């Protein structure tokens, strides 16, 4: 392999978002006829690197060359012209058009402007025969499953003679059988000389499928080497480095406290599979799992943000029929969304309005909104949470990420929830605000709330939780008591057999 010239050479690539560095000094060579994995934890920069290659993200530093020729793409269209196709989680297809029309979009065979459907079908059959990927050409793409939509994207990529195909987390919404089929496709493409860049956090898949693995951590390159030299344990060690010590909280015994939240047999098609759990008053239960494992989906289902197919949710001893977030709030469930910008805050509105929105009646004596009392109540909570500045009239969009997150907390404190579901409560928050939020979570639990905590940062979950539940592919697969060994939880998260029960 070393005697050949690399198809794509990345040298000293850097990328910053705001002040934080998503990629820092990353150099990788990618060869034709190989499947090259990019692995790392969430936020390690593996997806960003894939996007730099596909022209979706522009690099800030470093050089990239294709076939020894330096390139700088201003968008995916230019990368496509160089034979680089990106197949991302959000698929770029036209749902209302047929498979055939999507595969040939932009390269329709025609005579004097009139589409030559006969030739299109013939070329499609040739593609199918050559690559062994078949989807009914007359079906509309919008009605296909994700796996089939991916096939359409791959067919389109090979149709336009792509030499490099970036697959960004391609199997996160696929079933086991579909994943196998995708792998078969990827191998067929490799055997015909394509370079496949496979971004994934499923280590078993990566080891099974890929020829070369690049491990990343916090935007840095850890190493690139042949897959045969790696094991799941060595990859996990590379991805996480030495375990970071989290702040220790006292964890009082809650085993005698009343059960506040009881979930039984929760199902949602393709997302949740028979999930049951209970959280006691004062207890913090951590949910660990990879993105796509179903942890956020579980939170959304319990809070009413997403519909469930079956299952029961009991709050404080009472079975609740939760069909909307309004039902959830009424039942005493507060849900702190992971996406505060689009689902959480009203950026243009004041801090006071953002705080009181869930229960305006509390500040509306006689049915009319009393702005004075709204601001007074909001100021009280904002000061309690040390929001800086605690100015009820200020616009939320002027605050830092950490302060914005505190405003969301203030909103839920205002409504006195029985159950608090926190999805990534410290994402994009600086270290100081993070510690403050941790103390706050702890205090809310002490005051009797049942807390379900989701975080991609395993150390955060272990530091706070009385119990840790591990989710994988839509189901809870393992439960740990307080302060379990990090390695065991990681093993469970990645589904390794090594974790002791």
């Amino acid at each position, binding site marked *: 392999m070393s005697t050949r010239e690399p198809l794509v050479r990345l040298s000293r690539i850097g990328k910053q978002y705001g002040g934080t560095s998503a990629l820092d000094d990353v150099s990788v060579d990618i060869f034709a006829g190989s499947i090259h994995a990019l692995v790392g934890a969430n936020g390690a920069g593996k997806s960003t690197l894939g996007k730099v290659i596909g022209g979706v993200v522009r690099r800030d530093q470093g050089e990239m060359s294709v076939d020894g020729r330096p390139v700088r793409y201003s968008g995916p269209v230019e990368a496509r012209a160089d034979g680089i196709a990106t197949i991302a989680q959000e698929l770029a297809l036209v749902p209302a*058009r047929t498979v055939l029309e999507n595969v040939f979009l*932009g390269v329709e065979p025609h005579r004097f402007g009139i589409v030559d459907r006969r030739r299109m079908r013939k070329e499609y*059959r040739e593609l199918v025969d050559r690559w062994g990927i078949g989807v009914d050409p007359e079906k509309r793409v919008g009605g296909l499953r994700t796996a089939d939509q991916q096939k359409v994207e791959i067919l389109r990529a090979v149709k336009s003679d792509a030499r490099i195909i970036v697959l960004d987390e391609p199997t996160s919404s696929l079933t086991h059988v579909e994943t196998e089929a995708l792998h078969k496709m990827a191998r067929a493409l490799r055997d015909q000389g394509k370079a496949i860049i496979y971004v994934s956090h499923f280590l078993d898949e990566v080891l099974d499928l890929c020829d070369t693995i690049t491990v990343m951590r916090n935007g840095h390159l850890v190493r690139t080497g042949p897959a045969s030299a790696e094991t799941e344990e060595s990859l996990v060690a590379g991805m996480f480095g030495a375990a970071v010590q989290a702040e220790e909280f006292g964890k009082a015994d809650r085993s005698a406290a009343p059960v506040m939240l009881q979930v039984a047999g929760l199902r949602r098609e393709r997302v949740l599979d028979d999930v049951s759990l209970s959280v006691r008053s004062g207890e913090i239960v951590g949910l660990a799992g990879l993105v796509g494992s179903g942890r956020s989906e579980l939170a959304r289902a319990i809070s009413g943000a997403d519909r469930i197919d079956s299952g029961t949710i009991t709050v404080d001893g009472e079975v609740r029929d939760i069909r909307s977030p309004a039902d959830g709030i009424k039942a005493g469930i507060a849900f702190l969304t992971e996406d505060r910008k689009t689902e959480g805050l009203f950026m243009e509105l004041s801090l006071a309005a953002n705080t009181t929105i869930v229960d305006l009646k509390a500040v509306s004596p006689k049915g009319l909104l009393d702005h004075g009392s709204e601001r007074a109540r909001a100021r009280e909570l904002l000061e309690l949470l040390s929001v800086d500045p605690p100015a009820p009239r200020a616009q939320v969009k002027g605050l830092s990420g950490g302060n914005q997150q505190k405003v969301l907390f203030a909103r839920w404190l205002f409504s006195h929830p029985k159950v608090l579901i926190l999805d990534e409560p410290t994402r994009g928050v600086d270290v100081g605000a993070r510690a403050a939020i941790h103390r706050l979570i702890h205090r809310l639990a002490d005051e009797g709330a049942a807390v379900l905590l989701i975080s991609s940062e395993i150390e955060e979950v272990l530091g706070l939780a009385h119990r840790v539940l591990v989710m994988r592919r839509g189901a809870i697969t393992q439960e740990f008591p307080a302060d379990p060994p990090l390695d065991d939880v990681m093993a469970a998260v990645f589904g390794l057999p090594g974790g002791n029960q």
Partner: protein
Amino acid sequence: MKPKPPDAGTTIDRPVAADARRRAAFIPRAIKPEHIRDYGIVVVVVVVFAYFSFASPVFLTGQNLLNILFQNATIAIPACALTLVIIAGNFDLSIGAIFTFSGVLCAWSAVHWGVWWSFPVAILAGALMGLINGITITKLKVNAFLATLASGLAFTGLALAVSGGSQIIPTSPVFAFIGQQSILGVPYPVILTVVVAVVLQLILSYTVFGGRLYSVGGNPDAARISGLRVDGLVIATFVITGAACGLAGMIDASMTNQGSATNILGQNLPLAAIAAVAIGGTSIFGGVGSVWRTIVGVCLLGIITNGFNLLGVPSFWQDIVRGLLILVAVAISVSIGRLAKSSDGSTA
């Protein structure tokens, strides 16, 4: 650890013969929601048509049916072209103003430059105004609603300026020819409508350009990544619509033998045309639709007006029925679209 059962439908190497077999058995076994969405409007037209045929002795006569087509020609032509704009994911509220301005310019040029100038001038002026719309929307990135609302206002003002606020009445008998003469009993406006509709439908169904409009409306990002010149395609739809409005304005001027900036039809045209497109089942959000649907929509509205007039139903009832019809049509297409999301409807 894998909760999902092995999915029997997932096939790699799916034999193409199976697809052919599946397609050969294309006769639907049951009526599915998407059939109602796709063909419900045709059923409604047939029912309404049958009702008026029984209720009025005059309705089902060749002369009356031609009359319906003749009276709606100047709505149908802009509506057919507007279908292209809407499929590509845009909107045009200025069609009435373009229609009016073209009519005025047509009459004006017949008087000042000679009658043979009037026809090309009307169509070219319409196309030029469409070009202005298209450029404003794609290059200046003004929202299509606002851009065409504003340009429509300006075009109407321009029409007033050209006409000086009064009717322009050409005297040449040639001017009245297209609007008022017929061949083998079929008026020229009807023939022109059929030609425009057929040509635009063929463009949508069979040309690269037409197919790409669906993609631009259905997923602009995918279209761009696939290398389509989205701006150019969008501009083309506006130019075509402008030209069609020019043609319709010219026909109207010829029918009435005058050009007037206070043309009632021009004022009503945007809503009538949009209603016809929506009733036919073309998605207001783009990506789905066809010209024949719009023709069905125009016919339904025309039949209702004509039938009610023949039966002596007061005009306020007509407005109420038409309003409800638009509401029902759009509600059905939205709700059934949701129901039928996962199934594969036949292509319109």
